[in-house]
């Protein structure tokens, strides 16, 4: 899991990360966490078994906790009355900068929307792809020039390691399991792998963050991510599909049709009762 390079600080020339520099980058990280946290929370009370239901709810709460810290930090830097709630609940889908992968429903590309159609293999494979990325991202960000972000990264890294462990364990169990679990795990890999191409596409927010020493150049993590993913897929007797064609651009604000529904559910209460507490 220790796929990082030296412990030198991230490159860049502007050590002072205060002010609005890096806000877009913080929102990208926060949106990833909140969208996946919300999506996985759909399993709460519906998990395949009790223990796994609790495990996935734990993972969701970790993600929502990460999102809260990142939104709070972004809001403090933005000023003007911004808050974690205004950022999570009162931005529209085009303002969200999460990876498209994370907003997709828990089923394959050609399945209907009934809750009973949720496929745990899709859930697990998504968590695995994202978890493998975030272990590398958070590890690199512990050396961010933004010391607040570095502190969040140090906390999140421990959580991400567990998320990856949990997901990879299930990828192997499903892939190297029964004929049916293998087929469904492979279908999930085939469905979701193309969406990981977006990881490596640099966005303006990332480029700016890398230049100021706040962020990590995600493309530099690709070899380590490939190694993590290939190792587990091999153990799971799953194959990695060839990917070409359209690269999703969720982190540029161009989302699939699924994000609007997810946000509708997540934001509805806060928008119907602004400022409500409970």
């Amino acid at each position: 899991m220790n796929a990082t390079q030296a412990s030198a600080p991230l490159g860049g020339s502007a050590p002072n990360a205060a002010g609005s520099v890096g806000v877009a980058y913080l929102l990208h990280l926060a949106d990833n966490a909140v969208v996946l946290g919300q999506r996985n929370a759909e399993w709460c009370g519906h998990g395949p078994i009790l223990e796994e239901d609790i495990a996935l709810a734990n993972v969701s709460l970790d993600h929502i906790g990460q999102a809260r810290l990142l939104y709070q930090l972004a809001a403090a830097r933005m000023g003007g009355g911004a808050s974690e709630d205004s950022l999570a609940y009162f931005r529209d889908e085009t303002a969200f900068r999460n990876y498209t992968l994370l907003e997709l429903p828990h089923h394959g590309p050609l399945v209907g929307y009934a809750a009973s159609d949720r496929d745990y293999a899709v859930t697990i494979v998504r968590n695995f792809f994202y978890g493998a990325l975030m272990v590398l991202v958070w590890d690199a960000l512990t050396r961010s020039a933004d010391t607040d972000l570095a502190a969040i990264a140090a906390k999140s890294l421990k959580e991400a390691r567990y998320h990856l462990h949990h997901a990879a364990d299930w990828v192997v169990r499903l892939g190297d399991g029964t004929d049916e679990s293998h087929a469904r795990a492979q279908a999930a890999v085939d469905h979701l792998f193309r969406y990981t191409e977006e990881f490596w596409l640099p966005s303006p927010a990332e480029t700016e963050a890398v230049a100021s020493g706040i962020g990590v150049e995600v493309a530099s993590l690709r070899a380590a991510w490939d190694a993590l993913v290939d190792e587990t897929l091999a153990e799971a007797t799953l194959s990695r599909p060839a990917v070409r064609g359209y690269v999703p651009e969720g982190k540029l604000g161009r989302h699939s049709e699924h994000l609007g529904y997810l946000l509708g559910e997540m934001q509805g209460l806060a928008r119907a009762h602004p400022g409500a507490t409970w």
Partner: protein
Amino acid sequence: MNTPALKEWPLWEVFVRSKQGLEHKHCGSLHAADAAQALHMARDVYTRRQEGVSIWVVPSAAITASNPDDKGELFDPAADKIYRHPTFYAIPDEVGHM
């Protein structure tokens, strides 16, 4: 893919040692496919509220339990042997708290 899938996962007993605790204490049970998974699940189910710093899992089937019907012959004979409690001795002050 040669082993047939289990219809039911076996039961495991979970023991957790708390931060201050010297020993692992039984805290519950869960179903899991194998020991590694049982450990994972025990972490998620039984240590969410900072209950522990160490976990043991044991297959429930490996535990041999006394028969409740034998309760009388096993435990009742000890009831009138209160002298087995070390309460009839004066503890020297140097010993301190016991």
